[in-house]
């Protein structure tokens, strides 16, 4: 019974969070491995990144270890739909804004993001996408003169 209790994670949220930090520290250590640390009198490019990565890793280990002893928060439910649609919309915007311009990127991002919510009404969303794109073009391109492509495939800029 006693041994069993030692093996049980009592704060799953902290355990996963700790592993997250460990992973981050390890990746940074791996990336910074080739940098010279220098000496304390003349610190090189590698000293701080490696030291901070090590501290990150150790603090993650500490958090993980602590999760066996102190009671803590349970795991939160992770959702897929929201992050995939919203962040996917941003990525699509980044991919399309240069080659296809704002006239494609903005409504595309808006409609893909709208997939994230179950409450979306599609006709409303489509009308809103057109209106918002027109507004953004007017504001950012024509009123403020930002160098954002409009529709290179149609009008050349």
């Amino acid at each position, binding site marked *: 019974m006693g041994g069993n209790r030692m093996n049980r994670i009592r704060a799953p*949220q*902290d355990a*996963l*969070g700790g592993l997250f*930090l460990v992973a*981050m*520290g390890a990746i*940074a250590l791996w*990336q910074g491995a080739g*940098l010279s640390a220098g*000496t*304390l*009198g003349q610190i*090189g*490019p590698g000293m*701080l*990144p490696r030291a*901070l990565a090590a501290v*990150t890793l150790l*603090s*993650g280990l500490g*958090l993980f270890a*602590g999760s066996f002893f102190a009671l803590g*928060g349970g*795991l*939160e439910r*992770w*959702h897929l739909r*929201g*992050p995939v649609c*919203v*962040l996917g*919309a*941003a*990525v699509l*915007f*980044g991919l399309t*804004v240069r080659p296809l311009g704002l006239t494609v*990127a*903005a409504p595309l*991002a*808006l*409609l893909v*993001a*709208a997939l*994230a*919510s179950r*409450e*979306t*009404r599609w006709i409303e*969303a489509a009308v*809103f*996408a057109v209106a*918002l794109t027109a507004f*953004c073009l007017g504001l*950012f391109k024509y009123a*403020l003169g*930002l*160098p*954002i492509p409009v529709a290179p495939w149609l009008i050349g800029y």
Partner: protein
Amino acid sequence: MGELAGNLALGFATALSWQNLALCFTGAMVGTLIGVLPGVGPIATIAMLLPLTFKADPTGALIMLAGIYYGAQYGGSTTAILVNIPGEATSVITTLDGHQMARHGRAGVALGTAAIASFVAGSIATVVIAALGVPLTKLALLFGPAEYFSLMAMGLAFATVLARGSVYKAVAMIVVGLLLATVGTDLETGEDRLTFGLQDLSDGIDFAVLAMGLFGFAEVLRNLENPETRDVVKGAIGRLLPSRADLKQSLMPVLRGTGLGAMLGILPGNGAVLGPFASYAVEKKLARKPERFGRGAIEGVAGPEAANNAGAQTAFIPLLTLGIPPNAVMALMVGAMTIHGIIPGPQVITKRPDLFWGMVASMWIGNLMLLVINLPLVGLWVRLLKVPYRLMFPAILVFCCIGIYSINNNPADVMFTAFFGLAGYALYKFGFEPAPLLLGFVLGRLMEEKLRQALVLSRGSFLTFVERPVSAGLLLVAVVVIVVAVLPAVRKGREQAFQE
């Protein structure tokens, strides 16, 4: 005194040009417009609206940005009162009594009191900035790298204490922030560090990208998961101007709130967050009938709102005099200043007095404009608050994307923002607060630079940080703050304070 008057005169001459007035007005207006949207705090608002300032000259751009900032702050308070959703940490307190007042049909008075309290606090804070600007700049010139490093270390110590949740996790987040700040080209050798071979990372991670990902995008994801409980006040807003009795009741809370907020705002490490909490606690303690608090006490709106605005403004002091941004919003200001070729620090006040004093003067003008803009436009904000989230969040996303793209005209930035949005979502699920991470990131590069300089000067001896008296004093404060925060008694009090 004469010097101060002369400086302020120069400032008002700059800020009162038609162009700068127009920029200040536009900034305050669009800042409120975006800031009113539930779930959009000042950080996301400023990052989103940064491109609006690109066309103006540096002075005009900063005046406009400051306007956006105050507008966003005030918009957050409006949302807190009318919908019971705090836009950011500092307006949490306003929801307590402000929303109760609104439910009792006194929404207008709550909004009016908030606006007037903010204006009074802003006016006093402007004078504080003007008075402290010159002496602190002189002090800054005496600071060596060791003192700068210790000051920033103290700021980080405050940040851990002021974060919600566990102190251990807050410290871990600061370390992660410092780690992220080392990404990019090394200052001295020009070597790429932790860039994964990506060209886009060799200039380092852009602050706006990180902030927008961790706060803007992650916030949208969080809001999508929580079923909407928007409780927009129904019925009439009522009259806006507080009665004479209301004003009499609010006067002292406003003045006390201003004092508290102004003092806490100067602290590096986001002391401004603490202002409204402190003010609320003080007013509750001083009140003759403390049980009124939480049920629509006007002092519970007036004091914290004054503290909030005073702190928001005095937070400019460390930035303008020492070049150290005390919180994330000020870090965005640094980004905006760099875009216009200004490096914040003690040299600004001597080299560009028109810019420094113009900005100080525009703070006061901006506060006046908020009063003028907001009181008649409350009806519009109420209508805006009724826009359903299903339309609001895709629009927020598109504005964020355009804003981020426009900062460097780089599509890769938008994708990095999405990546940090995912990271922010994960941190939230693991129970980490993103605010300390952001502050660590903000101070990281400057801290590394100063650390390396200090160690070169001392030939590698860490003793330099404790042998120099000012540096030693600052570090001592940092240690005391941390020790006090982990003491069990204080820990309990801190948890309670954040629970409320």
